């Protein structure tokens, strides 16, 4: 499975509907869903700690080489805290979607809680519309943690305005700039704050031999075929996040002026050799950074910790650092926004038959937001994975924590970890965590996120391909503005016009609700 390219249907960004609510609710609490049928006499906390553990079956993915062990100590503690007996089918992430599709098609073989990765997939949406999953919206307000779920994110996962799942909270915008600090110092440059300064840094990185090896063998920025970098530049240039909504009109990003400006900018960078010319066939730009060939990386801030260990191995003097996002030509900072979630938990009706059972399952998820559970997931077990100093948690061994706690439990991390106890963390991590938090206010939302267009579901991949091909060709100078216009017309004829019309219709419909 190649790195997923732009997936307009899965793509993030709070819907406009949700936007107004995101800010209002990030402070926790908030109204929750105030509509929905009245569920009389529902116990707010079904399953008190004295009753017998509730058996929960679950299907979940794992992203490590080995599946998590169910008899590990953290896993046992989790079950104790949530008063449950977990029976998890762990599926390797590489085959997860196939397994879900097969399970849903067959039904009858579904767990009580199913993690759905590709929740904007037509098969899932059809299954939800056909009533295969419980609609959860009306129940959320009965649970202390679930009722504080962010309405903006709930609207992002909604299908026809109804909520069929519990999202797993993730930051809205993680992307930013990671830069070779030692190269900046070698050349006596400052951290870039504006686009022009960034361009200047990249130019110097290319021409002024920042690694001081006497060879002209460096690039300003590492580029690959992933769309994330292009979209990042597009946001800096003031462009929309995939779609733009204005006066009842939906416009895809590539029909805007900012898009053309971004294309021209990248073409100029290409001509100046600021990035590797083989980018259309490069799958993973981290390699260029790891080889010490490029000095700027655009991607998730938290990649800093995870993806560059090879660089330090081959060059112990290298120093990477995150820098705040830069301002664009309009003097303001813009970052492409995400959906703010990763996958949703859905509850199939075939395995959870009654409302009582449903409440047991919901209460299990709700308890995943309790402080004990969040401490466990964030810090592990006291004395084993962390110690307390000055009222703050301090990790004992990062690797042990990752192996025994993070890799085991993180797939069940539903809530944001802000309720866990405060801790002492690595300054570089604290820095990028803050940058990710700051990004929230600069995030450009995608107004089409919660909208469903049948044409886009059916042909979206081919349509995206037309534009992506044209984009690449423009950057390497194979076509000019006229050629890009032709690709655009091709897009419109191949179904793009229908997508626009369907989005506009959907938008009008949801806006009324």
């Amino acid at each position, binding site marked *: 499975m*190649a*790195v997923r390219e732009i997936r307009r249907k899965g793509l993030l960004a709070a819907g406009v509907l949700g936007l107004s609510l995101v800010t209002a609710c990030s402070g926790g609490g908030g109204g929750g869903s105030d509509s929905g049928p009245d569920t009389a006499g529902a116990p707010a906390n079904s399953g008190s700690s004295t009753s017998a553990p509730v058996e929960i079956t679950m299907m979940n993915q794992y992203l490590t080489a080995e599946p998590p062990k169910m008899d590990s100590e953290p896993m046992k503690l989790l079950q104790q805290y949530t008063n449950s007996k977990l029976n998890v089918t*762990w599926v390797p992430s590489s085959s997860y979607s*196939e*397994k879900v599709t097969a399970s849903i098609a067959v039904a009858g073989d579904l767990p009580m809680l199913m993690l759905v990765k590709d929740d904007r997939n037509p098969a899932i949406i059809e299954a939800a519309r056909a009533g295969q999953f419980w609609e959860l919206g009306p129940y959320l307000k009965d649970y202390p943690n679930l009722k504080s779920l962010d309405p903006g994110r709930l609207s992002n996962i909604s299908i026809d305005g109804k909520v069929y799942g519990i999202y797993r909270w*993730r930051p809205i915008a*993680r*992307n930013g700039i990671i830069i070779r600090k030692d190269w900046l110092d070698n050349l006596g440059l400052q951290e870039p704050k504006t686009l022009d300064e960034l361009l200047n840094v990249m130019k110097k990185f290319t021409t002024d031999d920042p690694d001081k090896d006497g060879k002209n063998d460096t690039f300003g920025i590492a580029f690959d075929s992933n769309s994330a970098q292009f979209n990042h530049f597009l946001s800096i240039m003031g462009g929309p996040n995939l779609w733009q909504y204005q006066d009842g009109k939906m416009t895809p990003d590539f029909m805007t002026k900012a898009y053309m400006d971004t294309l021209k900018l990248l073409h100029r960078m290409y001509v100046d050799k600021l990035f590797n010319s083989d980018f259309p066939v490069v799958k993973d730009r981290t390699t260029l950074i790891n080889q010490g060939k490029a000095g700027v990386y655009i991607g998730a801030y938290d990649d800093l910790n995870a993806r560059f260990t090879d660089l330090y191995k081959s060059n112990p003097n290298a120093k990477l650092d995150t820098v705040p996002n830069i301002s664009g030509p309009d003097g303001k900072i813009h970052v492409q926004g995400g959906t703010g979630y990763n996958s949703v938990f859905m509850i199939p009706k075939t395995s959870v038959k009654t409302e009582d059972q449903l409440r047991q399952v919901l209460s299990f998820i709700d308890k995943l937001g309790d402080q004990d559970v969040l401490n466990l997931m964030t810090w592990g077990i006291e004395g084993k994975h962390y110690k307390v100093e000055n009222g703050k948690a301090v990790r004992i061994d990062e690797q042990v924590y990752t192996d025994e706690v993070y890799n085991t439990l993180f797939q069940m991390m539903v809530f944001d970890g802000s309720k866990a106890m405060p801790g002492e963390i690595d300054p570089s991590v604290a820095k990028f965590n803050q940058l990710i938090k700051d990004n929230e206010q600069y995030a450009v939302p995608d107004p089409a996120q919660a909208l469903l267009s049948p044409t886009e579901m059916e042909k979206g991949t081919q349509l995206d391909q037309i534009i992506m091909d044209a984009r690449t060709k423009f950057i390497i100078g194979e076509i000019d503005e006229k050629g890009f216009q032709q690709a655009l017309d091709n897009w419109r004829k191949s179904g793009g016009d229908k997508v626009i019309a369907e989005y506009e219709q959907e938008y009008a419909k949801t806006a009324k609700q």
Partner: protein
Amino acid sequence: MARTSAGSRLFDTVNAGILIIVALVAIIPFLFVLSGSFTASEELLNRGVVLIPTKFSLDGYRYIFSADTILRSLGVTVFITVAGTLINLIFTTLTAYPLARKEFWGRGPVMLLILFTMLFSGGMIPTFLVVKSLGLLNSFWSLLIPNAISAFNLIVLRSFFLQLPDGLEESAKIDGCNDFQILLRIALPLSLPALATFALFYAVGHWNTFFNAILYINDNTKWPIQVWLRQIVILSQGGVGDSQNMGADYVVPPGEVIKMAVIVVSTVPILLVYPFLQKHFAKGVLLGSVKG
């Protein structure tokens, strides 16, 4: 023997040269993976293709064998391969032989039915339903039974049986053999090359079992090694981490070295089977297909 002309020698040289190039193209990737799996990861990153490592390292193998998962999965795969191949051979032979006998009434329609399955198959979901309703889910049987007979192999083996001379059979009968004895004592020994070939086909198929295991088996202790291999290879390409804008569930991917070590561990055992069956190989497939 005969004196070769200059032209013919030139032809031979060019021929050999081309063959050597073709052989190298096939072998070098294997060598690269093999030596890569013994190389320190920095070197692999900086030098690109490494055929003779300067910095030797066993890190990849250490990582793999530090967990019991891979050994257990290897055991599962060996079991599935041996048991599955036996089942395949027994059932394929027992079906192919009667269909090759002229006195078997109604073999035409049966052959048609078998041919039909080659052209139209049920597909994933119906097959899943069948496996489920037979109660095979979550057991090794789900990997052994559904593909017990490959229609194609069956047809080739049947043609192999068809070309055995009728006289052999008759004389065996006159000597007092019953049908089973004819099959066991006469037909099977004569078809050893074909059986060896199909054993190899089936064994490789079982060794590579991956998707069915994911579909039918939920208990991860029963997964064959290919599931593990695929996960590691995909993780190391960074492909599974969610797309850039999605969650932060990013786990440090196993390095190239580990990837290569896994490839070695999971492919070398089945590669070792080839040399032993190789002599039967060409003969088995060709003889069987002469009289289609």
